């Protein structure tokens, strides 16, 4: 079994996704356990793969026994197996959290919801483990289609927002596909390692420049980098909370992962890649400022978190674009941290909306007494988002700022620190409303203490705890995993 772990990461969720709608017609309980089992299986395989690659180096798996340049290859190195582990772990927590949310639904509908959720996982895990450009496109579309359907399952506004996202997302995927088309025309291969080997002969040609730019633009739209983020706030604000907890936590990270993989591991020696990275670094700096400023202007908590995500994606992108060892460590650590922090914040905010029916800041007055545990988790995650020690957010920002100082990019240092101050503004405002404001007596009748059901509370609290643990043990994470996940040559 362990010999096939790389492909099982993708196959298990895919196979169960087909089964779940049928099983849920018979028993909802079984269907839900099946979803959890599938995700647990994927997580186990990812953990096996991570342990294996850390001890023996990258693990190449040839699908159907076909040799790489012809067949599809899955490559598991510490970066991809680490991402797969993160995705499946967050997915398990979200699947547990989804229980009470789905319990009011008809069996056929909740079965389809679980099935789509597993398909979304299949797509994301596939993007992470594949070593083939076209296979990556297919998984990108699998994850996107599942995400469109899941996002649209909210209110009618969510459907309109999703339609916009669908148009933009399809354009993004087409950009990527065209870029891959150019690469294929130049090198005659779709295998990533093979493209890298044939690169020196074509690196100066103008079609190659077009290919790099198309791929970078396509994946940046998917990752909602600033000028291309238009689809994100509406989609995040109206979608069902379960979905958004997962999508905001991992989906945009996966696009950045793909960009990182393509630019640093495959096409890196080419000159145009360096120029693309410079452009991306300025786009990222603008994203950080714009995201934070727009977040300050929002009254709706989920919209505020959405704009804050735009800013935080800028942090990760800036670290990647700076490209020094410290900055890359910061970017990867921030990818991990932000998944956990934003997952925690969105799940908690979604829980509050589920309980009180509102996500508006004005209705947050006195919420800390009504839902103490949920609010405590929000406070921990908020402190981490601002970047105060000893939470996880401090350390990744520390690496990012140090990385920027090393290359004397003082503008970026100022941007990173300034945006931390802005995030302090909008997160402390939430804390102030929740803890210090008294609810208006006549507006809200009796407020009794009534936190979320245990099923929803446990994932939120687990995420909040891991923010603290990641902060305390960040050195271990870096020295055991992240430093091996960096591209090895030239760093």
């Amino acid at each position, binding site marked *: 079994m362990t010999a096939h772990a790389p492909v099982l990461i993708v196959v298990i969720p895919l196979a169960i996704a087909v089964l779940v709608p049928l099983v849920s017609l018979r028993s909802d309980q079984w269907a839900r356990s099946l979803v959890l089992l599938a995700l647990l299986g994927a997580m186990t395989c990812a953990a096996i793969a991570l342990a294996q690659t850390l001890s023996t180096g990258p693990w190449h798996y040839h699908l159907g026994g076909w040799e790489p340049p012809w067949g599809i290859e899955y490559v598991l190195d510490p970066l991809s197996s680490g991402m797969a582990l993160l995705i499946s772990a967050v997915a398990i927590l979200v699947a547990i959290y989804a229980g009470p949310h789905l319990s009011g639904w008809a069996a056929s509908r909740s079965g389809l919801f679980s099935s789509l959720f597993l398909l979304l996982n299949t797509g994301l895990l596939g993007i992470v483990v594949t070593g083939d450009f*076209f296979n990556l*496109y*297919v998984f990108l*579309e699998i994850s996107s*289609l599942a995400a*469109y*359907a899941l996002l*649209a399952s909210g209110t*009618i*506004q969510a*459907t*309109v927002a*999703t*339609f916009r996202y*669908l*148009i933009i997302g*399809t354009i993004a*995927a087409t950009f990527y*596909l065209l870029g891959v088309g150019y690469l294929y025309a130049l090198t005659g291969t779709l295998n990533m390692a093979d493209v890298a080997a044939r690169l020196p002969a074509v690196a100066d040609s103008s079609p190659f420049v077009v290919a790099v730019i198309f791929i970078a633009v396509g994946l940046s739209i998917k990752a909602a980098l600033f000028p291309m983020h238009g689809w994100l706030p509406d989609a995040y604000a109206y979608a069902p909370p379960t979905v958004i907890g997962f999508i905001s936590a991992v989906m945009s990270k996966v696009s950045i992962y793909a960009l990182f993989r393509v630019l640093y591991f495959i096409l890196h020696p080419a000159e145009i890649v360096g120029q693309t990275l410079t452009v991306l670094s300025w786009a990222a700096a603008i994203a950080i400022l714009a995201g934070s400023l727009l977040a300050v202007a929002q009254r709706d908590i989920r919209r505020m978190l959405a704009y804050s995500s735009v800013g935080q994606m800028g942090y990760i992108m800036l670290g990647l674009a700076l490209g020094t060892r410290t900055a890359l460590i910061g970017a990867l650590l921030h990818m991990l941290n932000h998944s956990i922090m934003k997952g925690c914040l969105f799940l908690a905010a979604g829980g509050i909306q589920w309980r009180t029916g509102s996500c508006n800041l004005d209705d947050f007055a006195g919420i800390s007494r009504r839902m103490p545990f949920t609010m405590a988790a929000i406070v921990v995650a908020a402190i981490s988002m601002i970047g105060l020690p000893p939470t996880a957010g401090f350390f990744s920002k520390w690496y990012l700022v140090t990385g920027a100082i090393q290359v004397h990019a003082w503008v970026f240092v100022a941007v990173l620190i300034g945006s931390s101050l802005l995030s302090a503004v909008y997160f402390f405002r939430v804390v102030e409303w929740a803890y210090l404001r008294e609810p208006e007596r006549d507006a809200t009748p009796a407020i009794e203490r009534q936190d979320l059901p245990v099923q929803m509370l446990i994932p939120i609290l687990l995420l909040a705890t891991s923010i603290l643990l990641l902060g305390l043990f960040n050195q271990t994470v870096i020295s055991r995993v992240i430093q091996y996940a960096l591209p090895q040559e030239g760093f």
Partner: protein
Amino acid sequence: MLTAIVVGVSTTGVALALLIRIYRYYGTLEEPELLQRMQE
């Protein structure tokens, strides 16, 4: 090539399903009208 066509068809399918849902609720697909009705 073939895969890209399959992906294109399924994307169009999802898009049309979303449009049908929007049309059933708002009774229109004209963008200015739609945005106006969403404001209300």
